[in-house]
């Protein structure tokens, strides 16, 4: 069954189109990373999934339940870390989690859940005294209540230190192993790269790419970068390397160093071409194109 099915979802505010005909399917059991710069429309999409906002056109379903017309059923099997929330001013951490378990009709133990996110010792403290990172972990504990089938997290590592972020990723992997589908948004690439099966990239309200990380690498010039240290470099040699089919780009850096982005099977052609041009290769290493390169390629190439 499809965990999240988004169909031509559009949200227009007075002057801006925050989300422009986005269609997206997230399959049960996968970890889906939703990537994009700030203001791209990530939160808008999640707000529509949660029925915080009403779409201008299109529809969204969670496990087959329409998010607008059957919102309550759609959220029954959901754990959420929303964006822009605040905790209840005068309730303890434990009361927060109990609120979530009661609301979901689950018989989970609040203290156990707090223990899982490392907040057992502060369970009886008023949540408004928590630090930002502690609040984020508290809301994660609320989300975990009742073993949800889908975890929906909007920038979940906001306010967490690196340890906290790693801990969060560990919990997400555990949940995924249990069988939960995970959908989270982020503008931080390493986090998405570290855990996601598939990635969607959102730019100016439009979904510009949905693929596995491997697939994204391949679609951008095969994902290999050759970093070559030649003894000497002529402009002619660089131009002839650029002319090879399968080469996307060749950049001369200081050193001199030649960086060639190319399809995997073109590497040899590049070296032969350099040899033909009389350039001796002193040193050579290959790099996989990082998600960052892809991200920049997608989000800047589009504008």
């Amino acid at each position, binding site marked *: 069954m499809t965990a999240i099915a988004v169909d031509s979802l559009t949200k227009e505010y007075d002057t801006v189109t925050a989300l422009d005909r986005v269609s997206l399917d997230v399959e049960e059991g996968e970890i889906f990373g939703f990537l994009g710069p700030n203001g791209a429309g990530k*939160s808008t999409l999640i*707000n529509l999934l*949660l*029925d*915080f*906002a*009403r779409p201008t056109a299109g529809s969204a379903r969670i496990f087959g339940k329409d998010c607008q017309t059957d*919102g*309550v*059923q759609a*959220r*029954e099997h*959901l754990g*959420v870390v*929303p964006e*822009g*929330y*605040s*905790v*209840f*001013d*005068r*309730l303890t951490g434990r*009361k*927060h989690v109990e*609120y*979530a378990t*009661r*609301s*979901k009709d689950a018989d989970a133990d609040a203290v156990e859940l707090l223990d899982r996110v490392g907040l057992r010792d502060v369970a009886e403290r008023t949540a408004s005294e928590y630090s930002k990172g502690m609040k984020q972990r508290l*809301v994660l504990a*609320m*989300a975990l209540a009742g073993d949800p089938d889908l975890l929906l997290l909007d920038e979940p590592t906001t306010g967490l230190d690196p340890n906290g972020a790693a801990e969060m990723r560990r919990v997400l992997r555990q949940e995924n192993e249990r069988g939960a589908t995970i959908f989270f948004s982020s503008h931080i690439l390493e986090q998405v790269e570290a855990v996601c099966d598939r990635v969607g990239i959102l730019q100016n309200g439009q979904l510009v790419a949905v693929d596995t990380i491997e697939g994204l690498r391949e679609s951008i010039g095969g994902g290999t970068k050759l970093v070559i240290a030649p003894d000497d470099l002529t402009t002619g040699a660089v131009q002839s390397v650029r002319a090879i089919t399968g080469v996307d780009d060749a950049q001369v850096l200081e050193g001199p160093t030649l960086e060639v982005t190319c399809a995997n099977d073109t590497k040899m052609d590049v070296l032969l071409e350099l040899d033909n041009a009389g350039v001796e290769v002193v040193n050579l290493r290959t790099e996989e194109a990082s998600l960052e390169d892809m991200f920049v390629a997608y989000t800047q190439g589009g504008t």
Partner: protein
Amino acid sequence: MSWQVITRWDAAETVRPRSVKLLLALPALVILGGAYLYPVFGSEPYTTARFAGFVSGLLSTVAALVGILLGYNSVVGKRESGAIRLSLSLPHSRRDVVWGTLASRAGLLCGTMAAALGVGLVLVVYPFGSLSVLRSLAFAALTVALGAVWVNLGLAASLLVATKRRAFVLAFGLFVVLEFAWSGLLLAVERGLSETGLVGDDPAATAAAQAAEPGAVFQRLVDGFVDPSASVGSAWYLDEWLALAVFIAWLIVPLGFAYYRFQGSDIA
């Protein structure tokens, strides 16, 4: 029944601060103080039915103030801070949030007043007074409903706007206009209209409009149904059954409208 979860948690959070406890003590004090003083300042015979007429004036203003203050912040405060997003991320509908909050806030005010009335009526009956059961129950029901009317009005303001400040201005403005400025406002409108020459003086229409304000309606209900020594006027618009209908309209219409608007609005 998920609104009940919201009710429990909202009530637990609401009664924490001392200011709210003091606020809730206010109508209780009016009732208990009234019950204590009624045999001193009232006249024979001392009955729980006539006690209603003794205390209803002040009680209606105090219940209005407390109801407004309990209601106006209830939803919009959580909407502005973002705490409502935690509730609405859970399997709660917006209707659950509205009902749950209403039950919590109205429950706090109405429960306090009902409890105070229970004690107050004992004070009235003992040692010199007499109890009229049906009329006392009717007064208790009216008092509880009056509290609910004003919590509803406050809650309606809370649902209609997106910031606490606007909700406060709307709700408190409503309280001041209805409780203190209603007659003057209507007279000014009447004079203004007759100055234009479009409509002639119509004192009956003005009086009818004056009689529609919740405090006046409550007073007429007490006079008509509870206090045997009081009576309502003879004009058609002063009829106690009409007052009951208007009272129910105050209970339902503003909140219904606000709820309808809230349902369709973006909260994030």
